[in-house]
């Protein structure tokens, strides 16, 4: 009889799903989006992806070494932040801007709070917004896609949402003709951040996460649903001025935001009701910022604002314990 017996509190078996395995799955799910980005924007996009990811990993190592904490880059969370940051940057982002973003995301967005699990805000979005406010020129210099092999160079242009906002600001009405088609937007043939261009690729990845049960429908469905309903209402009121809901869906960062940024587990509520409130809140804020705010795109701001509300939402959406009435007390 061996003397080496494990003694522990029950349960004695585990699902086998670990934090690194969850993070790896999220990374795999981003492969299609990264592939499409590299196809449309070429080497510049690839270099942004690499610099952001390596920058995040390096920053995590430096921070943890400085704080004399165990280095945990193997858990994959810093790599995800890096990839998501890259997907939230323009393909023409200069190397120093990308690197700065990586340092901000991990150092300011995550490690100062205590690392994985402790950050209130989505680290990649913190970095994106800091960069957007500090370097508006570089962060809003968009390029039309130049697919690999097409021989085209990246040419500066406006995003569909930017195009619309400019026209509305100047004329008070929709632009007479947009540069792209809805189908083209959906596939990714539009100017924008590296990761927001192809709704199709993002949905493919999200499908995999649904299959792995890492993603639940609650936040993405309520977020997208709220944007469709609210933008639809404005479109019905004044179709000459406001774009239709499909335009809202396929342009800009809504799909990236709803399926990848607003579903970051750490910074979103844990109860089902909380998730639904979070999704609706993101949707309302996104539409309001897009239609009435100073920026053409509102996804990042909307999610960060709702991140800030998450502890409050969690506080007030405690699930009803089995065997109790909803307002406390017993059944």
């Amino acid at each position, binding site marked *: 009889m061996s003397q080496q017996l494990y003694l522990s509190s029950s349960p004695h078996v585990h699902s086998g799903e670990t934090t690194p395995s969850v993070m790896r799955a999220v990374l795999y799910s981003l492969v299609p989006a990264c592939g499409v980005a590299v196809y449309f924007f070429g080497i510049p996009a690839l270099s942004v992806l690499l610099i952001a990811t390596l920058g995040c990993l390096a920053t995590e190592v430096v921070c943890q070494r400085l704080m004399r904490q165990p280095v945990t880059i193997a858990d994959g969370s810093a790599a995800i932040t890096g990839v998501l940051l890259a997907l939230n940057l323009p393909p023409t982002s200069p190397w120093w801007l990308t690197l700065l973003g990586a340092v901000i995301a991990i150092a300011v967005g995550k490690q100062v709070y205590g690392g994985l699990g402790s950050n209130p805000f989505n680290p990649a979005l913190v970095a994106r917004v800091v960069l957007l406010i500090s370097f508006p020129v570089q962060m809003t210099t968009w390029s039309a896609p130049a697919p690999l092999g097409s021989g085209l160079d990246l040419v500066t242009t406006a995003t569909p949402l930017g195009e619309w906002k400019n026209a509305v600001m100047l004329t008070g009405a929709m632009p007479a003709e947009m540069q792209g088609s809805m189908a083209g937007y959906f596939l990714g043939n539009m100017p924008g951040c590296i990761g927001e261009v192809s709704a199709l690729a993002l949905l493919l990845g999200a499908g995999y996460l649904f299959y792995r049960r890492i993603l639940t429908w609650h936040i993405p469905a309520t977020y997208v649903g709220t944007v469709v309903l609210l933008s639809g209402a404005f479109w019905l009121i004044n179709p000459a001025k406001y774009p239709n809901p499909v335009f809202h869906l396929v342009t800009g960062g809504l799909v990236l935001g709803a399926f990848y940024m607003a579903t970051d587990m750490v910074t979103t509520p*844990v109860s089902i009701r909380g998730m639904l409130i979070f999704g609706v809140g993101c949707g309302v804020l996104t539409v309001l910022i897009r239609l009435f705010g100073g920026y053409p795109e509102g996804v990042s701001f909307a999610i960060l604002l709702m991140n800030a509300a998450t502890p409050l939402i969690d506080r007030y959406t405690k699930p009803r314990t089995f065997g109790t009435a909803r307002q406390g007390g017993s059944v």
Partner: protein
Amino acid sequence: MKLRTFKGGIHPPDNKHWTSHKAIEDCPLPDELVVPLSQHIGAPSVACVEVGQHVAKGQEIGSAKGFVSVPVHASTSGEVVAIENRPHPFGTPLPAVVIKPDGEDSWSSNLQFTDPGSLTSDELIEKVRQAGVVGMGGAAFPAHVKMSPPPEKPIHTLLFNGVECEPYLTSDHRMMLEESERVLQGVALLQYVYGAERVVIGIEANKPDAIALLKKQCADAAVEILPLQVKYPQGAEKQLIFAATGREVPSGGLPMDVGVAVHNVSTAAAVTDAVMLGRPLIERVCTVTGPAIKEPKNLRIRIGMSLSHLVEVCGGLVEEPGKIILGGPMMGFTQVGLDVPVIRGSSGLLLLREEDIANSPEGPCIRCARCVQACPMNLMPTTIAAYARRDLVEETEEYCAMDCIECGSCSYVCPASIPLVQLIRHGKAAVLAKKRNALL
């Protein structure tokens, strides 16, 4: 038709295929039986025999002390060789009566057949108490206590638990298949006591043979066989009641608060023996299984047999076990060695190899909410655990720690391998300690 169930829960691999098809085998008697005087919640019984005395099978060797207590009986005939502290499944050595079997295995002459029709309800309950019948599902709560609800709590539904949702365990399954008459006789006896309007036997749908057999045998009787969705912890009392009746046992309450009484199917069989034959609870079916066991079996064991004897009867070990568990893998108790005896609540002996054991390092909570969605009590395990870890007693209580049934679903799904159940247990103990102090 969609099967009834509860909200939340998990789907661990059930691993019942090792033993679900294997008929119950009688476990041969060992050279020594160690019968603990404490086998369940409530006061331990007190030895009423002396060293050197000869005892008959079924003779009382420990007397009950108090209402929530039952007597303990000799599991075979033989000589009492010691009354001393011996290793016990609860972890620390506890008083036990050690019997050296004489090989006769002869029943006490005091035990006799009774016609249950001649008994009043109270006489029947007294017979159950005298026979030391306890809940056979694991917690081993004395059955006679449950059978005596106060008059202001009438029981309209009598529910039998044949769910057996713990992975690996098949003892109740085999009981329903091989001993269905004893089970159904017990169901009828308990129904006689309660006089409930509805009698239900809940069985998880992964035991279609047991469902079919009992349905056939209950074709005439007013007993409803209810197949339930395969999901852990479907057999937890509150979850089973919800699935069968749609009612929630109130927080801090008991099944009788919603007019329900629940007994395990194997308990029903023990009631039959107690009432009809006067035979006390000295044996039970125990599933001896796990990847470290050579020949997993369903054994009919005597209370007091050592785990090492059970392992020997099952062909020994494939390799050194990494963990010895009495009960199932979700709620069973780890043991410090194989020299521990089986007790009335021992539904299974599970031996895991080192590689089967969940022991990935604990990481920070990533707030993935899997525990919240898995919790069958609709709690926020990660929040309770975080408060409990910091000994924030008020917050632990505010987040309903006391409602936790410790089923282990949250720990099972936690990707950060946080010992949620262990932390919540710690928190519950702190809440109880605070309440005790408040009373002083």
